[in-house]
């Protein structure tokens, strides 16, 4: 079971890998599209990488609700 801190840290590494955003800039209140240069296509990559890393299943219908890093952390923590 991953903690919120572990999930945030993991997501930050994934966003860094995909969008080149420094790990320390990936904070809970940041919007994927507006702040982190993650467009809808790159978001699919983030989701697939997060599923693999945390063993969570993030349904396609759910992805549109994950606007901020905090949304993603909450969903992953609740669904692992």
């Amino acid at each position, binding site marked *: 079971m991953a903690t919120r801190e572990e999930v945030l840290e993991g997501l930050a590494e994934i966003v860094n890998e*995909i*969008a*080149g955003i420094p790990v320390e800039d990936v904070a809970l209140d940041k919007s994927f599209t507006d702040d982190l*240069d993650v467009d809808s*296509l*790159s978001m*699919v*990559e983030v989701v*697939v990488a997060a*599923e693999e890393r945390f063993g969570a299943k993030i349904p396609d219908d759910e992805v549109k609700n994950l606007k901020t890093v905090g949304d993603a952390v909450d969903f992953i923590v609740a669904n692992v």
Partner: protein
Amino acid sequence: MTAENRTVVVTGIGAFTPLGGDAATFWEGLLAGRSGVRALTEEWAADLPVRIAARVAVEPSEILPRPVARKLDRSAQFALIAAREAWKDAGFEAPATDESNELAPERLGAVIASGIGGVTTLLDQYDVLKQQGVRKVSPHTVPMLMPNSPAANVGLEVGARAGVHTPVSACASGAEAIGYAIEMIRNGRADVVVAGGTEAAVHPLPIAAFSNMMAMSKNNDDPEHASRPYDKGRDGFVLGEGAGVVVLESAEHAAARGARVYCEAIGQGLSSDAHHIAQPEPTGAGVARAIADLFDRNELDKSEVVHVNAHATSTPQGDTAEIKALRRELGEHLEHVAISATKSMTGHLLGGAGGIETVATVLALHHRIAPPTVNVVDLDDDIDADIVRDEARKLPVDGRIAALNNSFGFGGHNVVLAFRSV
């Protein structure tokens, strides 16, 4: 001069090639007669009948940040790097925007072509699908592999809203893109167009396929001497990769902003063979019609032509047919034309060829020097023309001089571009 017949000039150049990662290094390599062909040492090459190619001199990963590069096919990476160089070389500091005074986005176009498109992306992602499953296939796959991707990405980079286009005609694609761009400006659709060709097909599948067509040199033991246009011993082309891009501009627009002008881009001649899907028409009739079309539709006199950057890929039939066509159309004047086959050094960049060879032609006029054709040890008896062998050669120092750049493609596409000193 009416709005439908405006003069077009070249104001910027960029090249990402086997001889160098920018236009200056590329040109130095050409003048020095350097070969960019090397042995392929990758594991996948071991079982191929052809194990040589002309890879780009600089890996794009050394230039593009990883988040940018991972969303671009290798062919689009090359095009983007060459386009950025050309854009900067033309004196533009930033992309065209609604606020820019110098150039409105609505007056800016991009025409970039490749012969094969994002073939390495397609094949790599198919490997991902088979080995890792559906979910792991990159969501960027389609925008990466579509043949218009280099044009679209260059268009995004510079802010082009007048039109982004990708003509596809195999190895004539790059030249056709530049011809299309010249016409966009000439007929008033745009003031500035970023145009060129790119290709990245050094991958076992295209190599196996071209090799099985008996189109490629199998001179694996002597890579630097494998591409030998016009030589009796030529046995096919050597695959190259890279991109060449020019900034084309209406003469009026260039003058208004005080831009440096390399030369005039006069126009294009076009034809098609209706002969065979992959074989050149052996008498050169189709190529001759493209040359005739060039002189018919453009204000250019044959006597002005002093240099040809030939298509000359080092195939037995194609090299000869092209010379026959030049002889037919230029007649005795061909004695005064210095012909260079730069593929002897760069290999054949397929859809990228028209791009880098236009850059070479523009620089030949600008510096008034024709690059050499290397590896002609024993000139084919059928090559009845003045080939610039071994060493670069000076072109006439006085008066206006013109040069042609020929490109032909599988499918029987013939494109002849013409440029003239200013």
